[in-house]
């Protein structure tokens, strides 16, 4: 990578960070919550969480098998944030959520989050370290372990968020056949294609990264999503201008 490309990348990161910080501070001061476009899957998911609490059923959060030492860890961090929020939303229920992961660090972090949520909600008596478990160390062994957790009759809602391959079709198909509500999102394109064919409401593309903001986690998440939308518009503009210039022969 050339020095110019590195410099552009650095400037891009710094500007993005500054925007996130400014918007976060602004939202904290004004106490306003930005309104985003409606994503049907997330609206239904909130209802599914409420139903799960009402019915006393359990929510299974599948964190995927992204390693935190890989770039795909971004989806794993999103899934951990979602796990925390789901734990808070379902704190009034009898059954705390369970989490399965295909990476060891992810499993430890999920246990940490579930413990923290239980402590915040004063439900430590319901906390079990095995609620956050390493289901398998390879993609398919992870799928096999996660399927076992989904087989629990108490599990009526499945949240599949993270990095998967096409093998996620096992999880989504089983969840649909079981009649459970399924919220599925992945940063992997093959997984997105499979999820679109096997679930009703998958999150496509960057909608995965909008999940924390839609679950009303913190102002930083909302600010992050605003910056994400801004940057996306900027990229679209750059692509359009570049295409026009290319057609005109300017570049």
């Amino acid at each position, binding site marked *: 990578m050339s020095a110019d490309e590195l410099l552009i990348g650095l400037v891009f990161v710094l500007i993005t960070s500054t925007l996130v910080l400014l918007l976060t501070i602004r939202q904290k001061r004004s106490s306003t919550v930005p309104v985003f476009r409606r994503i049907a899957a997330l609206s239904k998911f909130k*209802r599914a969480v409420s*139903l799960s609490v009402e019915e006393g059923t359990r929510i299974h959060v599948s964190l995927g098998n992204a390693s935190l030492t890989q*770039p795909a860890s971004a989806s794993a961090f999103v899934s951990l944030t979602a796990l925390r929020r789901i734990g808070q939303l379902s704190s009034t229920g009898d059954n705390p959520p369970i989490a399965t992961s295909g990476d060891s660090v992810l499993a430890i972090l999920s246990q940490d989050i579930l413990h923290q949520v239980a402590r915040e909600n004063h439900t430590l008596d319901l906390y079990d370290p095995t609620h956050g478990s390493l289901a398998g160390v390879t993609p*398919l062994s992870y799928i096999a372990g996660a399927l076992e957790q989904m087989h629990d009759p108490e599990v009526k809602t499945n949240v599949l968020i993270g990095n998967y391959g096409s093998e996620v079709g096992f999880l989504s198909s089983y969840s649909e*056949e079981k*009649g459970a509500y399924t919220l599925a999102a992945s940063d992997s394109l093959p997984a997105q294609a499979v999820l679109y064919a096997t679930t009703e409401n998958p999150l496509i593309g960057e909608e995965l990264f909008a999940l924390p903001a839609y679950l009303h986690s913190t102002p930083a998440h909302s600010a992050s999503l605003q910056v994400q939308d801004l940057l996306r518009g900027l990229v679209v503009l750059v692509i359009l201008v570049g295409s026009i210039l290319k057609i005109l022969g300017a570049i």
Partner: protein
Amino acid sequence: MNDANAKRCWYCQADLTRQDAPAENDSQDWLNNLRDNSPAPQGDDQPEEPANSSESPNEEVPAWLARIRTREQSERAASEDALSASSEELSSEIPDWLNEFNPDQEKEKPDAILPASASAQPENEDDDWLKKLESWQSEPTSSPEKTSTDVTVGSREKPAEKNPIEDEAVTPPDSALIKDSAPEWLQAFVQEPKSTPAAQQGNLSVQQPSTSAFLPAERTPKNEEDSLLRDSEPGQISPTAESIESSELDTALAPSQPGEENETWLSSYKKIHPDKDIKEQVIPAPVDQDQTKAPFNENSLMDWMKPIDPVTNPSQKEPVPQLEPAALPAWLQALSLKHNGKASAPSHSSSDFSDFGPLAGIEGTLPGEELNQFYKRPQTFSGLLKTTESQQVRSKLLKNIADQTHWEDENLEEKPHSHIWIFRLIVTVLMLAAVFIPLLFTQISSIAPSLYPDEVVQTFNTVNALSGGKPVLIAADFDGSLFGELNWSYQPLLAHLMERNIPIAFLSTNSEGTTLLNQSASTLIKQYPAYASSDKWMNLGYLAGGSIGLQGLAQNIQTTMPLNSALQSAWLSKPFDTVKRISDFGALIVITENADTGKYWIEQVKPSLGTTPMLVVISAQSAPLLQPYYASGQISGYLSGLNSAVAYEALTKTPQNATAHLSSFQITMVLAIMLVLIGGIVSLIFYHPQPGKKKRVNS
């Protein structure tokens, strides 16, 4: 109470010729006070109607009984009219939650309130429940609480039953029930305990049993309700004298056993000494203001039982006439002389002296204010949920509905499994047939590609351009799941490298990649004896750390991977001793099923490769994601799936496994297309939304 014309007491057969008249007057006096506190009974204005036609005209009826019957006939009609109007008023005063509490009771409310109208009837009606009071006083009990609470009819019919007051009357719902089912005068009493102290003093001794007498009608089972209603409804006791004896007297008086147990309660009366002044013995002392307590502790009452604003109920301010001192009838004194003087109820000592009320001045009577203690006890709320019969029926109904819903949900979950496996089996059989039939019948030909993809051609050209002395680094970043597809894809490339006698070093960022590649290469290497004899195949093993490890590899390969899998120095022996940096390799070939893995290699390692070409063998499902990197020139070429392998074999003119399985692949693809097409058309025609929980979530 005995009839006014009776010569002898109904219960004890004592002579009543001298003392009955004053006693009746006394009772009428304080009963008049009671009526003053209550709204004017409508039944009083009603003319007396003839006796019920159901009565036998030839029957010999005592005069007192005939009078009761005629009055009851008139009251029945009057009370029905009055209750129909008053019940609406009552229902409007009842809280909503209480209305919902027991709809059946609402239906029974007119019946349950019938005694209330009876209280507003002429004085002889009052005699009935005064009889109950007498019998209650004579009830032998084992505990003070039971003594004062066994007055309920229901408890008489079932002595073993729990005391309704003890268990229920102190709870707010029961208080509400008392208010609802009690006569109007009692409701006013409940609502304003302080406003008419004098009247309450006069009422205390009788209100307690009266109010509690209504409780079983609210709480007891149906048969008990019927018995209570028989007891309380005038119409039920009027037809015959037998019915009076069987229904009213049996229920109200039977437990007291007139000839025997009346002596027990009379034993509490003290003997009047004839040598002392009778006035000193019977006239009560002046009423102490401190004793004018409300029967209910205001603090212990529910909000809705708290005193009503006098402005809203001015009738409560009416002055209450001073009660006349009462004296125990002589016949009762005579009876008490026979007794040994032992108190009938442990709660009342023989020295108790009623200062007010209809029995004021009479020693040994049940003092009204002590009943206050009964109500002043701290309210004890049962931990158990007490439900009525109708509530239980409703809860069962709700449970049935919930169970049915749950069952339906389970059924919906299980239902697909019941027939899904058939379709799944059909799909499985069809796909397996599509795979195996072309392999079994080799005469089924495939459609060979006539044009070769550009990326495949570029890959071929890149390998062809490699120098024979420079080793190639292969990253085997795949697992066993897609090994079959990748094995077909990379075998022609590997064979091409071996054919050109190019040294190969390989590693993997996952635990099983090198093992699988080693196994595959060990089979292939047998086809190239010259290559097998040399030491051009080196296993570098597992590279830990994912993309972080790749960064280290890009920066310094010798420190990141110093040893081979045999734990020997990897970079000292030929032909790998020429490798100092990663760019010293002739080419980098990444074999992976995951586009992200290919992306990591491109992003982390490619910048360090310089001019060294980078090739990728990838699964067909991830090929579109790699296309941009090929289009931008970051990778020199790539092979994806079986089609690329067939093309590469065609380019190297060494048809192997990929070409052999092409027909099977193509037929299976056609089958998949047909399945998707048929399924889509069927879904379009027979569309039905998803049922069950998802429907609720979607709603």
